[in-house]
């Protein structure tokens, strides 16, 4: 088959003309609907958001606005609320992504090694992932409810979990880790399964201890899968909104960048400052994404080429 293709398709440049659209024109036609839609639903709103963030809007008279330059940004950056939301977001991201990764790695290893029950594990591990984030929030809220929630009963305490400072954020982190560690496990497991067993056999013959096999074979070969999983989880965690909204509405040191912005423009109707918060959140995410992609840029190029 391949042979005939190369034989008959010898002058491909000429044949393409008689074939309706040329490859380039077809590519253009097929790509443009998506590009137009992306311009409409992603690029335009973001540009409009930047425009909004450079204006000041009257609270009393609807539609009245004036050019404000960068004053919304200077106000945002001089605002302790903003920096506390930034701190909360970064702490939440660092802690939850680290825990998710470690727990996910352990789960993936266990699943990979289990002979029996692997099918069962693969099924149940999808359940936390498939629950809605809002549902996850309510679920953990009912578990940590005070004074008579499950956790307080088990511990024999009457801690107000969601009503004080480090505790509320801890509950949010627990909820997030619970939901996404299994997802991480699935990604890592898929990576594990691409490692050929022969490599371990060879290492065993050469006298490698099991810990050595883990650090010298498993981990290096898993790095690509792990990095991609970590990027997506980190960028996802940086925009966290649902869990703090449902669990605390941002009270007690749980206000994140997205939540602060949403409250400012949607609840308090301060469009200019709210948009500035949104754009600053966007910039924060982009900086982290850029740092990540610099490290693993080759992976993406690999997908783009062949």
């Amino acid at each position, binding site marked *: 088959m391949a042979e005939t293709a190369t034989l008959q398709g010898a002058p491909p440049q000429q044949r393409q003309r008689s074939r309706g659209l040329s490859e380039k024109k*077809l590519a253009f036609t097929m790509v443009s609907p998506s590009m137009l839609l992306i311009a409409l*639903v992603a690029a335009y709103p973001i540009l409009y958001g930047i425009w909004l963030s450079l204006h000041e809007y009257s609270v009393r008279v609807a539609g009245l606005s004036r050019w404000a330059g960068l004053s919304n940004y200077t106000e945002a950056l001089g605002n302790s609320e903003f920096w506390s939301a930034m701190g909360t977001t970064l702490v939440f991201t660092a802690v939850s992504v680290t825990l998710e990764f470690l727990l996910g790695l352990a789960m993936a290893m266990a699943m990979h090694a289990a002979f029996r029950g692997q099918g069962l594990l693969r099924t149940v591990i999808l359940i936390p992932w498939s629950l*809605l984030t809002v549902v996850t929030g309510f679920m953990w809220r009912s578990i940590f409810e005070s004074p008579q929630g499950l956790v307080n009963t088990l511990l024999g305490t009457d801690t107000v979990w969601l009503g004080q400072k480090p505790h509320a954020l801890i509950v949010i982190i627990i909820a997030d880790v619970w939901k996404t560690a299994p997802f991480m496990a699935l990604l890592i497991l898929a990576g594990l399964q691409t490692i050929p067993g022969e490599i371990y056999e060879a290492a065993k013959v050469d006298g490698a201890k099991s810990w050595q096999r883990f650090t010298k074979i498993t981990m290096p070969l898993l790095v690509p899968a792990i990095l991609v999983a970590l990027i997506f989880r980190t960028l996802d965690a940086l925009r966290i909104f649902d869990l703090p909204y449902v669990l605390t509405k941002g009270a007690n040191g749980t206000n994140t960048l997205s939540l602060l912005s949403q409250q400012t423009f949607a609840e308090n109707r301060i469009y200019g400052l709210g948009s500035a918060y949104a754009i600053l959140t966007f910039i924060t995410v982009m900086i982290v994404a850029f740092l990540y992609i610099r490290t693993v840029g080759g992976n993406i190029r690999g997908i783009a080429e062949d």
Partner: protein
Amino acid sequence: MATAATTQAGAGAGAKPTTSKKTDTGPKTPWWMWLCVVAIVFYCLFPFYWLINLSLKTGADLSNNALVPPNPSLANYKAIFRNDDFVRALGNSVWVAGWTTVLAITIGSFCAYALARLRFKGKFFILGLVLAITTFPGIAIAAPLFKLWSNIGLFDTLTGLIIPDLTFALPLAIFILVSFFKEIPKDLEEAALVDGATYFQAFRKVVVPLAAPGMATAAILVFIGAWNEFLFAITLTSTPQARTVPAAIAFFTGATTFEVPIGTITAASVVISIPLIAMVLLFQKRIVAGLTAGAVKG
């Protein structure tokens, strides 16, 4: 041999690396492995079990922390289906997630095919752009749309939710579809081209039927994403008219100030989770393939 290798890999990762036995006869699972299995199952299922448990309790039982409801009742379920706002929200969710999926898959599959198969300039740029958008924080779209939708009358409408949902659904669909299209052997298309088919015919008659499972996977993942969407649903709506289920449940709490209606919230949570869990269990293999398509290839 493969099984022996996996034992060793697992043993290396497990709690006690030293317990790895030499040349086991057949697949014999060590006791600590069972412990791991039980722990993972408990981890994944218990919180959800607790949610179901609460949803079957009423009145004072809701705070007694009994592992099994002492007086199980379906009263909470009856209550939510009598709640017009909730029933309406279910319909809204199906409509919004359904249209988002159809549009994202249809439009995205063309783009994904071009990215996976055709040679043209700017391919890397487009793929990078698509990937970048999946990482955008939704808030950067929600803030301007809140103002824009009020100006042009799309605020608190279902269309006003489908459009921003597409912002994330389309790149996700493209990304998953590219990896599936690449898996289809090129020979078949080349044969079609040799037989005189145009590129577009090769796409429509050869690639699309072969890519159907991949497209189904992408559709499931996009649907789940849209069904789960909360930020736009809460920000761009103000009445039950356009609220989807996640937003509607969040407003159950607002109804009573002093007492959280935990019974009805948990019942509603169970009801909206069931279609997703059913879908996930039914298409388990495909979903895992779709989720890992991008990651493992990398």
